């Protein structure tokens, strides 16, 4: 191999503490090095030209650039050598800026270190091989998991972009958390009025197939070619026939079923359509409460149903969909606030969550939009809001800020005053975080126009006092203890990752943080990508966020999918593992440890062997360090390549 070495000054960034000319001179003595020079700015246009020219002039077949981190410019220089006709993988970088010149001032030590890094890079390069990517077809359909506002947005954008969309929602209706809200901040728009039309669009769009009351059972395949098994859970109602008339609900004698949609404020019937604008507007029987399913007696709904769609024998059903990309938009759940013993731990009926309060405020909610105390149905006079319940609290393992509670609390304070002009609201807060457009103005309005009393401090205890509650807390601005008589306490409960998020992540082979929120590809630059190609994120599954951000992410994810599908074929990354079939003994250890299911067992002349599915392989190299006989080798990071670096550094 004829290697060219280019040692970059990076202006004075490197040259300031590294004698680049000396590094280049030393490099001339390294095995395989046929040309070495120092250059002012290697990444600049003339710098790159110099490489191209040197490749041609000296017939180089490998290039080492010693400059900044490969995380910065590896792609740049790979393209450069490719322009000169070399394979892009016959290139190595030595990081002599971030790892040398910027972290020490001893010029002698730096120069020596830089020289050794170049030596390592050149040694590795001697073992590099040209790698070529493969082209493969893509299935231009997209699966969107979760029918909240982010999922709806992604679905509609993709469908509008001409893609076939499969939307899977685990409850019986799309709409998510937003559908449960009464109003939205800071405009105090009716939530259902703005979301409703979008939901209808989903139902009517010819490109969208909606599986409600369904969950993802299994995901296999890879970007461009996923295969997804969807479980359609039994509703005991034939949805092809159900018209959503609701007669069954009026006649159902089992009226103590849990009302999930209304957050447990009140009860509902065993057969149920969650709310009037539900999409799809179909009834479902809650088997836990249905007398027919529990005890075999009743069946009134079947008798009254005009279209005869009740089917007590219905079973879960599975359908398989083939898609090319997946958007996870699985949202969030509320933190289980009952861990807070000081707030009663769930023992006081008049301590409720913010989302329960939303349902109470909603005209279509169980109270018809009247604020009533759950304990006695009376209108409250003093309403106390407590913020940061399960947010910014290390003691309950939730150190992060949910981000939108400050805003909805302000909104709820305003709405309280609208509903009950006599009422007095109090808000216990830590800090007001109102960083969106018109947000700060909105919280000020709550304080100034709606007379919400904001108290900066945490609540230490809630005690029952007569038929009301005594809220004791600190006012840290005044430096005093405060006690407020409350008729109703509303907890601004923070967002937790959605129940089941981890299980789905494992199916999708994406990672999640310690709270269960999905990891984006890069916190700044890849906010909706994941590290699994073809899987994108939208909305609160990635972390708590408000509606506009969720919608923006839905659109962003859709644009990523549309961008991906704008090509007819995809190219696989050739830095994948390859199994040497001659060395493989078929023990399957690689198959067992591959996080991506990218290795399969094949039969080769009657012998078991492993084979890498190169489109699925993500190039982590776990198989390579697992295979005892070195049969599986991650290309570009083979044992011999790493050993050559080790040997360049230490072999006495």
């Amino acid at each position, binding site marked *: 191999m004829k290697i060219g070495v280019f040692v970059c000054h990076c202006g004075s960034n490197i040259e300031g503490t590294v004698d680049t000319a000396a590094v280049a001179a030393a490099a001339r003595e390294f095995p395989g090095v046929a040309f070495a020079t120092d250059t002012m700015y290697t990444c600049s246009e003339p710098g790159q030209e110099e490489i191209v020219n040197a490749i041609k002039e000296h017939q180089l077949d490998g290039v080492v650039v010693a400059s900044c981190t490969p995380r910065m410019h590896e792609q740049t220089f790979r393209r450069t050598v490719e322009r000169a006709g070399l394979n892009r993988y016959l290139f190595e970088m030595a990081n002599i800026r971030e790892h040398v010149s910027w972290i020490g001032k001893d010029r002698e030590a730096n120069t020596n270190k830089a020289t050794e890094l170049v030596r390592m890079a050149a040694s590795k390069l001697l073992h590099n091989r040209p790698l070529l990517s493969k082209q493969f077809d893509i299935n231009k359909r997209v699966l969107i998991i979760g029918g909240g506002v982010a999922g709806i947005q992604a679905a509609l954008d993709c469908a509008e972009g001409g893609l076939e969309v499969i939307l899977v929602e685990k409850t019986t209706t799309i709409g998510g958390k937003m559908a449960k809200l009464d109003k939205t901040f800071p405009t105090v728009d009716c939530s259902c009025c703005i979301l409703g039309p979008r939901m209808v669009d989903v139902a009517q769009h010819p490109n969208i197939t909606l599986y409600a009351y369904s969950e993802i059972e299994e995901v296999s395949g890879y970007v461009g070619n996923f295969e997804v098994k969807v479980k359609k859970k039994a509703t005991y109602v034939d949805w092809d026939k159900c018209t959503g008339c609701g007669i069954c609900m009026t006649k159902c004698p089992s009226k103590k079923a849990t009302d999930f949609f209304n957050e447990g404020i009140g009860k509902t019937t065993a057969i149920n359509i969650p709310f009037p604008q539900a999409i799809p507007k179909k009834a479902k029987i809650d088997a836990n409460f249905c007398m027919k399913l529990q005890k075999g007696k009743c069946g009134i709904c079947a008798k009254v149903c005009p279209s005869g769609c009740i089917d007590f024998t219905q079973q879960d059903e599975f359908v398989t969909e083939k898609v090319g990309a997946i958007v996870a938009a699985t949202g969030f759940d509320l933190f289980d606030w009952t861990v807070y013993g000081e707030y009663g731990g769930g023992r006081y009926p008049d301590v409720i969550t913010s989302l329960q309060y939303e349902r109470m405020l909603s005209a279509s909610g169980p109270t018809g939009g009247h604020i009533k105390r759950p304990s006695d149905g009376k209108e409250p006079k003093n309403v106390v809001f407590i913020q940061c319940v399960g947010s910014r609290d290390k003691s309950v393992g939730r150190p992060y800020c949910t981000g939108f509670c400050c805003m909805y609390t302000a909104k709820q304070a305003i709405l309280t005053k609208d509903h009950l002009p006599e009422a007095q609201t109090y808000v216990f807060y830590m800090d007001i975080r109102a960083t969106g457009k018109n947000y700060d103005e909105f919280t000020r309005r709550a304080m100034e126009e709606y007379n919400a009393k904001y108290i900066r401090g945490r609540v230490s205890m809630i005690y029952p006092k007569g038929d009301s509650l005594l809220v004791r807390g600190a006012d840290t601005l005044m430096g005093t203890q405060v006690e407020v008589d409350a008729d109703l306490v509303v907890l601004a409960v923070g967002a937790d990752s959605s129940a089941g998020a981890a299980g789905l992540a494992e199916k999708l082979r994406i990672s999640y943080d310690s709270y269960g929120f999905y990891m984006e590809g890069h916190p700044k630059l890849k906010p909706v990508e994941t590290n699994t190609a073809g899987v994108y994120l939208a909305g609160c599954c990635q972390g708590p966020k408000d509606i506009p951000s969720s919608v923006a992410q839905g659109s962003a994810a859709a644009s990523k999918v549309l961008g991906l599908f704008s090509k007819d074929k995809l190219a696989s990354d050739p830095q994948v593992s390859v199994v040497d079939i*001659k*060395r*493989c*003994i*078929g*023990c*399957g*250890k690689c198959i*067992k*440890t591959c996080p991506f299911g990218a290795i399969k067992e094949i039969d080769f002349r009657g012998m*078991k062997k492993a084979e890498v599915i190169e489109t699925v392989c993500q190039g982590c190299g776990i198989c390579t360090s*697992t295979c*005892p*006989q*070195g*049969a599986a*080798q991650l290309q570009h990071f*083979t*044992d*011999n390549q790493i*050993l050559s670096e080790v040997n360049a550094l230490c072999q006495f």
Partner: protein
Amino acid sequence: MKYQQELKDSIRKALPGLDVVIAWSAGYDPLHATPHFIRREEDIDRLEIGPFSVHNLATYLPGLRGKKVGIVVKGCDSRSVIELLQENLINREEVTIFGFPCTGVVDQTKIRKALGHTGKVDFCQIASQTVVIGLGGEEHKLRLSKVLADKCFSCQYPNALISDHFVGEKISPSVQTEGDDDLEAFEKMPMDERFAFWQKEMDRCIRCYACRNACPMCVCRDHCLAESRDPHWLSQEDSVRDKWMFQLIHAYHLAGRCTECGECQRACPMDIPLLLLKKKMNKEIKELFQYEAGVDPEATPPLLSFKMEEENINEREW
């Protein structure tokens, strides 16, 4: 051995359905047995089990895939069979396992050490706890417990853990837990002496790879890293570094898979105390993962799995 006849009868019954049964027979002198491949009825007569049945015959199984193989196993050997099953390197339906209660096997090195040399053994009789060896016309009496292999003292699995035919009465495991004395003693040595120790021991390695080939879990066989150029982990140089490195490869590749049968050390013609490395590895594996290899055919070796929260690994705080 008490159950020898019963075992022979059992094999005789099964042989028509099998290509071969692997057992032991008398070796080249009264102090040695040798693996015995029974293919025909008449081969059965030469079968002998006893304290010289040292070889772990499970080593032969992966090489006989595709054949119907019977195998006679001691308790410790059965763990290797389990481990091979666990790794899908043998098919359960192809293997017929004959178990017997093992009361321990000898360590030839201990006998040699006790007698000076054992080149000319005329006879050997074992009666209850005494071994009588005729050596160049003289009679030497040794206590059996002086010459049993270390692993037998702390043996927890004297009966085959898995078998299709078990002859004799199952016996209870050893209550002694000694056996790791050598490891404990070694770990009391200062670091530099340990380093020097291995250099000295590895110096006499002749790279014959008997340790590897006798190991039932060294399943790479002809594709071992030791002799490969791609990947090129080792040179062929007679250097302590390369020879030592090989033993580290061996020990690490056995981490969580080694059943401590001791074949590596027994096979070593240079008597290098190789088992010490494996014992250390097993001790750490057991402490970290409460895992013992070769007990459960359904288990996954700990280095091929993980837990998100490891009970015994503290996150490194620096």
